[in-house]
């Protein structure tokens, strides 16, 4: 950004590591089981949430945070139950407000690793504004949004990501609302980390959560999740094993955008528009393809990727954007430190007796 506009510019500095606690070694040694709580998991059999939970538990040890320094905060929805199943600190808050609790907790306790678990309704309907502001402030949280394009817990109403024309309990004649593109909104909100993965793509999901966890700053991770009860197969068209290579684009930093079973398809820039091309056909070579840059200072490329979707385009998954920017808690701490450096640690007596005083004998 610019000075006038006062943005603290995104930069291409390397992504910082989270502070590693003394227990680090011990922690790394932990396994998924150590992060399984004693609570019985209660989602519908076959729900995509099970896999997201499993991958989350799997990657937890890698960050070097002891269990007690990790907090999962959720809103309301099926997704919101996840914290109960994590053997860490957890807070199942109220609908749409998890990012606000996370903002306060992280500001008060920069030493904690904070995850926000939310759904497409929780995050984008009632909670949209809090997501927007936590992202622009670069609050150092990992926000994982389970996107099943439906209200699961309340048994099947349209969500902000439900398709235009979608028939649901609340829209028997079809939804009249144009859906929100979550990643576009996250990028417009100045999120410093934006990524997408799929519940059933376990390795990729692990990789994505891992990247998110290691990012310092606000991370927005959309996980395409299947609600087999109220919106079964919402993503099937391009996530099914047989078709996914041809219908999804796995993003890798600094690599050309190639996809397809035979790795022969790619994305080329035509003016300001992406187009799907086949390598080797009418003279297209790998060199013509767009090369992914998740660290671009300006999110123009990321914005474009965020709007590419099946069937026009393969659906991009992976990290769209990852830039370093001072975090909210850091900036707050810096101001306190500066204040003390300038005028010394606050003296309550001085404060009370400050200003204009007079004494009565």
């Amino acid at each position, binding site marked *: 950004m610019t000075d006038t506009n006062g943005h603290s510019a995104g930069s291409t500095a390397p992504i910082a590591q989270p502070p590693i606690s003394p227990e680090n070694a011990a922690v790394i040694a932990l396994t998924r089981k150590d992060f399984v*709580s004693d*609570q019985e998991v209660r989602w519908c059999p076959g729900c995509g949430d099970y896999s997201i939970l499993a991958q989350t538990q799997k990657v937890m040890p890698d960050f070097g945070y*002891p*269990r*007690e320094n*990790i*907090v999962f*905060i959720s809103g*309301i929805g099926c997704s919101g139950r996840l*914290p*109960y199943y*994590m*053997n*860490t*600190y*957890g*807070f*199942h*808050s*109220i609908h749409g*407000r998890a*990012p*606000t*609790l*996370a*903002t*306060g*907790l*992280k*500001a*008060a*306790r920069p*030493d*904690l690793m904070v995850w926000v678990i939310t759904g497409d309704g929780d995050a984008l309907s009632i909670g949209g*504004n*809090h997501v*927007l*502001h936590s992202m622009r402030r670069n609050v150092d949280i990992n926000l994982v949004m389970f996107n099943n394009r439906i209200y699961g817990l309340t048994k099947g109403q349209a969500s902000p990501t439900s398709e235009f024309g979608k028939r649901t309990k609340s829209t028997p004649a079809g939804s009249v609302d144009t859906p929100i593109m979550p990643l576009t909104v996250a990028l417009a909100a100045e999120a410093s980390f934006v990524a997408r993965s799929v519940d059933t793509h376990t390795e990729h999901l692990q990789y994505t959560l891992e990247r998110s966890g290691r990012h310092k700053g606000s991370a927005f991770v959309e996980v395409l999740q299947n609600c087999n009860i109220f919106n079964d197969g919402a993503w099937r068209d391009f996530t099914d094993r047989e078709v996914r290579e041809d219908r999804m684009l796995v993003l890798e930093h600094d690599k050309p955008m190639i996809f397809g079973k035979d790795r022969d398809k790619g994305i080329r820039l035509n003016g300001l528009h992406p187009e799907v091309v086949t390598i080797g056909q009418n003279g297209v070579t790998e060199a013509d393809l767009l090369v992914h840059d998740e660290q671009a200072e300006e999110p123009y490329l990321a914005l474009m990727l965020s709007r590419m979707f099946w069937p026009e385009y393969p659906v991009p998954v992976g990290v769209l954007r990852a830039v370093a920017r001072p975090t909210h808690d850091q900036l*707050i701490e810096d101001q*306190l430190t*500066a*204040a*003390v450096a*300038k005028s*010394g*640690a*606050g003296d*309550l*007596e001085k*404060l*009370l*007796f*400050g*200003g*204009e*005083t*007079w*004494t*009565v*004998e």
Partner: protein
Amino acid sequence: MTTIKEPDLSPDIQELERVTIRFAGDSGDGMQLTGTQFTRTAAVFGNDISTLPDFPAEIRAPAGSLPGVSGFQISFSSSEIHTPGDQPDVLVAMNPAALKTNIGDLPAGGALIVNSDAFTQGNLNKAAYASNPLTDGSLKSFTVFEVPISTLNERSLDGLEMTSKQKDLTKNFFALGLMFWLYERSMDPTTNWIDAKFGARPVTAEANKRALKAGYAFGETTEAFHTHYRVKPAKLDPGTYRNITGNEAAALGFVAASRLSQRQLFYGSYPITPASDILHQLSGYKSFGVKTFQAEDEIAAIGASIGAAYGGALALTASSGPGIALKSEAMGLAVMVELPLVIVNVQRAGPSTGMPTKNEQADLLQVMFGRNSDSPLPVVAPAMPGECFDLAIEASRLALKYMTPVVYLSDAFLATGSEPWRIPALSDLPDIGVPNATDPATYRPYQRDPHTLARPWAVPGTPGLEHRIGGLEKADVTGNVSYDPDNHHHMQMLRAAKVAGIADDIPPLEVYGPETGELLILGWGSTYGAIRSAVERLTGDGRSVAHAHLRHLNPFPANTESVLRSYRRVLIPEINLGQLLLLVRAAYLIDAVGYNRARGKPFRIAEIVEEAERLLGE
């Protein structure tokens, strides 16, 4: 009221016990500054004081217009006083609009000082005056002093490098200087202030000082004012004092509470009149480790504060009525998760946006009941600006000790009004620290302290205490989610009992006046001054009337019922339609009567005296 004493004094000095001055002018005329300067001077001089600023709702209404009028009333006295005075003894009106909107409050015989220069046809029109009040005789019941303030002031600034517009902006200092002479005040505090404030801009500084001196000199030299007045210092309790507003006192109180509890203060807030100043104050206390967060809205503000409380901070959020409405769902969450949190409501006139800059105390039932289901929490309310400090500590103490959200009810009058405040010694402040849970062997998220019924506070980062909380009903002791019917009833009763139990941990309700008698006047919040003054007058006239003032509105002090039953009648004056009244009647089945006026401003002493007389007469 001005009463003359010691008639043997030299004829041109009258000694008065108490004087009330109101400065009124255009928002652009700097009346708030003028008032504050006079206040500081009177305070430092040692008078007891009480002030009442009165802003227009508009940022800057058009110059000279009626809605643009800004006022500041100060009452200063050689004896203890509790209110800024029912009526001014002296009204300073800088333009016709100011005269029009304020003259109604000036009693017959009151002194009126007007800036005659401002009474142009244009300004008279803006104030909707058909004829010029200075000439049409409509003011003959007052002692009018016409002073061409603008001209005299401009003249005094001759030769200064300023536009005449800039010069005119200093005329409030002329008026101030004149008042200083009239009441025998030193100009030093103000000249020092001017130097400090405008040091960087010498011309402005010089101009303001000249204007001040010119006003003073005008008083001395002119024939207009034959006498000037003396108001001796008041006999206040020994100690060091400062002049303070309720919002300032509250901010200091919470910083103190943070120290006394050894916890960082986290303040999540969204600006709203008249609560914003607390945010402004606290955001300046960074060297005290105070973290302030201006959220995107009131919901985010309380959400962040709940998050910080979960993290072990002394968490605070503040707003006014409309914002509190938005916080109510999250307040219910705080009740369910039983985390300490102080919610400040600086009340203003409603309903809805209402009259944002005006006063009211009508959010009591909102904070008591404005949440789904039975959702009890303690409520406290300061009675005077200085007391905002003490109750900030008290609210924090209750929140931490009982692991509960606590509501702190202030209002626009307390928040912006000021009084001399005797600064407490740190050693006199209570230790309100509470320990965190640390022992995995004994920790249960909802196992309660047998005395306070508080649950243990286990903050993230504590090994072995990993647990989950949330808004769903909790199983007793374990805190697991529970839909068990009997557990739910049990938990509802426990939450209620925890709050009710606080009654044994707070001071009893004190009575001023006879222990038993004809009439008890029961109040809460900012009506303290008016009620106390009324009761002083009534008892002075030999009436059997007492005053009790609640600082704790939920639960009530344990002795409340017995106090109420000690009088034949109970009168509850409130700046609302009868909210404490409803709670008292329901709790004790006592036929208390209300005196309810919602005029967006404090009670006058006289109306309470009148109402009391009426009841005594019945």
